[in-house]
């Protein structure tokens, strides 16, 4: 067992190298898309079927209110992803090229 073997074992199977792919933006859009979709579905349900209530009804339209919360959350995530300094840097780099 020389020194060589363990290192090969470690790096090949466990420690990936930097491949240069950028994912942070895509992750932001991906999450915003799902949260917005859910938010819109809940808001519409709240508007179209305000009579849907749970057993432990709290006297307000749960679907509508939480739908709005999710739409707002989705917009915030989307906005942050769009405004991120990384995205701006990427765009500038592309323009220069």
């Amino acid at each position: 067992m020389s020194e060589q073997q363990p290192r090969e074992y470690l790096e090949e199977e466990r420690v990936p190298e930097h491949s240069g792919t950028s994912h942070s933006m895509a992750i932001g859009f991906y999450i915003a898309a799902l949260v917005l979709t859910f938010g819109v579905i809940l808001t519409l349900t709240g508007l179209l079927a305000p009579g849907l209530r749970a057993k432990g009804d709290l006297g307000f339209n749960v679907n509508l209110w939480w739908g709005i919360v999710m739409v707002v959350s989705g917009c915030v995530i989307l906005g942050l992803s769009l405004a991120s300094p990384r995205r701006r840097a990427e765009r500038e780099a592309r323009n220069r090229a």
Partner: protein
Amino acid sequence: MLALAQLKLSTNQSWLDYLIIGIYFVFVLGIGAILRNRMNTSEDYFLSGRSLPSWVTGLAFLGANLGALEIMGMSAGAAEYGIMQSHYYWIGAIPAMVFVALFMIPFYYASRVHSVPGFLRLRYNEATRGFNATLFAIFMVLLSGINMYAMAIVFRLLLGWSLTASIFLSAGIVLAYVTLGGLSSSIYNEVLQFFLITLGVLPLVIFGLIDVGGLSGLEHSINKAGYFHLWANTGSTDNPMAVQWFYIVFGLGLVQSFGYWCTDFLVIQRALAAEDLAASQRTPLIAAFPKIGYGILAIFPGLIVLTILPNLGGSSLANSYNMAVPYAMAHYFPTGMLGVGLTALLAAFMSGMAGNVTAFNTVWTYDIYKSYINRNAPDHHYLNVGRIATVAGVLLSIATAYLTLGFASIIDYVQVLHGMFLAPLFGTFLLGMFWRRTTGWGGFAGLVAGTATGLILFLISLDSSLGASMARALYAFIVVLVVTIVVSLFTQPKPENELRGLVWGLTEQKEAVEHAWYKKPWVLAVVVLLLAIALNIYFW
């Protein structure tokens, strides 16, 4: 048109919930398919190319930790033990996360330590690695049964099927998810999971607290002595957990918690995927803030459900503590919102289960099969072995799902396992990293002795309460330290050049460069610790 939609929505109560769950699966499987075409290497899937900012890795770090255990298990524990369950957050997670950020990440970053088996092999010897790999494979199968069981409970409630049918349905879904590539985009899904779980569980706590009239209303309507104190009754064992503060601080806060956060590379690898050392260090700290919040989010549903079902906690499945969250959701969430809540639970199970099955697959294929059974086969052979291991792992999880039925709640079961598997490993890790004199056979003897101690103590008492698990973890840890030190003193130490990159004093660490004061690790660490202390005092 409006009237039609209204009629449809109110006559069919559940298609909307299924639609929401369906959309989630389309998203998760879809992103796997899209990414597969866009990424060049298999490493890209996993670590997403070491280009991630710390908010992504931080949320993924927490997402990887938020399994079924977190949501259903912790609230089950809260229904059983009251707010003392929050010890698993404010003493049992935050200090360890801060420690990992400040001390372990720079070390891992600079060293050759990137996995438990890798470290054990280089630092100790082949025997230690082999022993640990075998234990770890067993541990993963025992653990993945929990996710299977938790998922089955939800389907049972949702579809009204028997438990066995629900378990097989869950197994089928997990297999489909793993084979269709639901895993391949893990960081994407872990961050998504964090948002889904938070948006699904937060309303449960808000609605519940509105319903019972806030914290004081909750205390009043539960009316159980000691259910709302973290420390006040821990001078003796006269508290819901029947445990003294000493075991909470050292058994849970030190051994179990540090054992988990320092050695769980499923979680640590998220931090190592960050763009630079400073971002890596920030990762556990960014995760620590929502983790503090989960000390409330994951715990309170279990307390709130006691106001609806005061007699929860029996031997039958329908009356089990594990039902706390599903029952609370069914009570407070109307169709629509219920779909979002159930999706949050499913997301947690899927990623927990998939994580366990993949870890099992990796350890079996590379650390056991390739190392000891068939050393020189072509790559595609190992790929096939891995696939078979995935199926076998899911089938074995079905069996272990039934094992969890014997415990009052899944959190009891998990902590029995953690005490037995992680506590000894932590001792071996700690000595190997900080004491040069530790020898290969010293580490092996210590790990075997510590694991045996935990196992024997459990078999003698068969006590699965949380207090007993904390104590067992502490004893097993002490046995590991003593045996490792004694055996090391009588065996030949390794030459220093073999320990480079593996032992603290022999690894050159870089200083992380960070100019913004609010991003400095120690600033974040102090803030997060102060918050945790404040909550401990508030719920004293």
